């Protein structure tokens, strides 16, 4: 999700709901937003079903190839997977299941999709969660430093650094880190594991297990953090530069505030406003961005689950993960809108 797109969405949001504010109270504003998100959810649910049905491959054939023999066995498999029903029938069962929170059985693992997603959820959340927090904090700080020292060396360096990271495919960065730190290149020893979440001989639930997982996640988190902090620092920098031209900063300085307080209490706080909404908005897209990082670092998260499920194609799992990603984005979108309404008094009634 690029800086430029997210700014657009934010502008579109504020602009779109401009007329709404004037006539109604805050609840109407929140209600409007929630309704919009609900509409988006409905769209995704329907879009989700048909999207996968159109894939030419037939899961039974792919699953059975090389293993099952008689066509009786193929019919048996088709029936157990419920693929023998007519399309509308499948759509109805799909709707019933989705609303009752039951996502059907994975074709490949024959486990309820909900459970599989929950099992594979925490590595992705751990990876994406830590990376987003780090990326936000470092990104905003970097953006602040380069905005305040505009034109100086530190500004050129940090903007150049962010621009390079922004133009780099994050998974390629992961590959380089793997080659240098996990495999060990020349002087650098093998510092980190080459993939996975746990060492085999450590009990994952114990404290040492926790440390071991942290040790496994260090490289992927650094990669994802670097990838997203570039974007945040560019957003923060331009938002802060806009603020720095404002007169109320001169007033603040005139009031005798030390320069560092002028920045912290006035400029940065106002510049943080649009940035936080964009960051939260971006959160939704990071979850799907983890797909590439999980592939490179062999982390059994949701991203990997999606790419694996695609080979079969395992409709229930694909629908489950796709729905999850969309909900993540819709929620992030909703939170970002409400946050914007909350933080910026100019919007609230």
């Amino acid at each position, binding site marked *: 999700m690029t800086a430029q797109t997210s700014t657009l969405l934010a502008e579109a949001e504020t602009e779109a709901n401009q007329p709404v504010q004037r006539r109604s109270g805050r609840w109407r504003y929140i209600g409007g937003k929630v309704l919009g998100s609900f509409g988006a959810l409905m769209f995704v649910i329907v879009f989700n079903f048909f999207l996968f049905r159109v894939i030419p491959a*037939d899961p039974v*054939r*792919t699953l059975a190839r090389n293993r099952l023999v008689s066509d009786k*066995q193929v019919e048996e498999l088709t029936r157990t997977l419920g693929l023998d029903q007519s399309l509308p029938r499948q759509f109805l069962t799909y709707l019933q299941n989705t609303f009752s929170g039951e996502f059907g059985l994975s074709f*490949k693992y*024959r486990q309820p999709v909900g459970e599989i997603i929950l099992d594979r959820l925490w590595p992705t959340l751990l990876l994406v969660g830590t990376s987003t927090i780090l990326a936000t904090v470092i990104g905003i700080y970097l953006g602040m430093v380069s905005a305040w020292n505009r034109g100086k060396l530190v500004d050129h360096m940090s903007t150049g650094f962010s621009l390079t990271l922004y133009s780099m495919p994050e998974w390629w960065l992961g590959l380089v880190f793997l080659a240098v730190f996990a495999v060990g290149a020349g002087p650098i020893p093998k510092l980190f594991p080459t993939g996975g979440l746990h060492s085999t001989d450590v009990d994952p639930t114990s404290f040492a297990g926790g440390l071991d997982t942290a040790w496994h996640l260090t490289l992927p988190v650094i990669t994802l953090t670097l990838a997203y902090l570039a974007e945040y620092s560019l957003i923060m920098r331009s938002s802060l530069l806009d603020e720095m031209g404002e007169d109320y900063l001169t007033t603040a300085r005139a009031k005798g505030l030390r320069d560092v307080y002028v920045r912290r209490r006035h400029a940065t706080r106002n510049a943080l406003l649009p940035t936080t909404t964009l960051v939260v908005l971006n959160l939704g897209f990071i979850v799907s961005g983890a797909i590439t990082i*999980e*592939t490179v670092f062999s*982390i059994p998260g949701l991203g990997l689950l999606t790419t694996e499920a695609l080979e079969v194609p395992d409709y229930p799992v694909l629908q489950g993960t796709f729905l999850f990603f969309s909900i993540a984005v819709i929620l992030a979108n909703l939170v970002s809108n409400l946050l914007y309404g909350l933080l910026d008094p100019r919007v609230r009634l």
Partner: protein
Amino acid sequence: MVSDRVKRATGGVAAGVLGLTMSWIGVSAPQAASADDPVVFTVGMTNEVDSFNPFLGIEAESFEMWALMYDQLITYSPKDMSPQPGLASDWETSDDGLTWTFTIRDDVKWSDGKPLTSADVAFTLNRILDGGPEAATWGSYLTSVDSITAPDPTTVVMKLSKPNAVLPLLPMPIVPEHIWKNISEEEVKSYANEGEVVGSGPFRYVSGTAGGSTYKFKVNPDYWGPQPKIDEIDYVVYQADDPMVQALKTGEIDFAEDVPPLQLKAIEGEDGIKTVTGASPSFAEIAFNTGSVDVDTGEPIGDPNPAVMDPKFRYALGFAIDRDLLIERAYQGGGEPGDTIIPPAYSQYHYDAPADLKWSYDPDRAAQLLDEAGYKMGDDGKRTMPDGSPIGTLRLLARSESPESLHTMDYFQEWLADLGIDSEVTAMESGKLTNVILDGDFDAFQWGWYVEPDPDSMLSYMTCGQRGNWSDSWYCNPAYDKLYEQQHAELDDAKRAEEVKQMQAILYQDAPYLVTAYDSIGEAYRCDRFEGFVPQPNPGGILLFQYGVRSYEEMYPVTHCGEGQADESASASDGGGLGTGAIVGVGVAALAAVGAVGGILLHRRSTADERE
């Protein structure tokens, strides 16, 4: 102006970070291995187990897990995959081949202490007969079986409607009746069979979930068969070959399954690592559209090029393929040149074509055969149909996710061009390719098959009956079908082998398939930790993921490469955890960071009022 609170806070943070790093170093230093530690054998693989429920799973990895957890009636001999006694110590069949009687061992106990009897065997086999997911997975082994009964605790009697040559092969795992009888038809569809698992096999399930990345097994102390010399098996799933190979080098795992040829070469020289390239019972082929028809009406469908429908044309192309070059380039040396659809691994049934018929890379012979068949070279350097009309461009389809498929078709296009035949390569998803095959809109494609120990299933794919189902070359030859029926009911092994070879001879001449290569599977293991694997087939076979668990039973821990004896005091688990060097490095880096941050903070405090 800055309150003391801030100063104290930065001091506290620095101390906290310091403490964390020190504890990190202390805790995860690798525990020194001591003699009475359990011998843990760690296996790396690149595909997950799709289900621990023996009636649901389909992946090869799941078959391996079931083989560890449960026993089978009949097992395969490592030497030549022929049936060997398992739970059934002895079996015999009536003259008309319609009644099979198995004698079941009486000294086998389930992990919960209950005895395993013929009732469990009958229960398991009947569940498969009744249909549902059980039939989907194991139904093919009980074709034409009518009833299965257990007259007494040590005998099981099977009645058939027609003789079935595949018997006595019954590789399905036998599950405890007292557990599975209260799992209904509906529940079994999503029964994960994880957590408390009652089994009788050499190992017992400890932990691991379908699709997860680690599975743990521990040895069954009172196993009736040969007692394994290792205590625990850990399976680790990697998403790509790279990390797995690395894990083997760093000692995180002891065995790496299915290592691609290039990486196998890369680690051949490493100390403490031995690499094995085992023949795997699967082959790759270039298949032609021998005449796609609508199975019901018999009307031709699709638009195959008439040239590929002529057996002579196809047979001639057999000489245009340089199989050695393909192995070296497309398979990076990971395979053997191929000739017929039953791989040499099953030596009993493998057909060797006589010298005069045998394919070899001989473009001139191919040109000569094409001329004889009427496909003469036109004056524009392009060969024409026997009636003089141009052949046109042959459509070669490759599977986009397999580099071997793409490169094989690239080479084939070039070799056809050398013979003056135009062709173009298109790549598509294997799912989409299946649809195209069923519609008949293709001339040739590249794919492969995995052949089971009993050739029956593979041979059936070339019968007229399988067209529109599993047959992908639309091949239909009544003489071939007659021989198929004969061997299907032939109980005499020698006679059956002869009939199977005759069928392959027909296929060789008609050439619906040009078998290009027999895949081989690369395996690598820490020879400084474990030895004594039993290859299947022996020699030249693969070590693990075979038909049967003999390797797990025979292997033993060692301390150094070479033929080390079973050494009790072997320390098997010195790997794992952080390399000490690594932690110290990280700890020092953390300390330096804390120092630097502290320094900057102090500096800023002192110059506070000087700045703006």
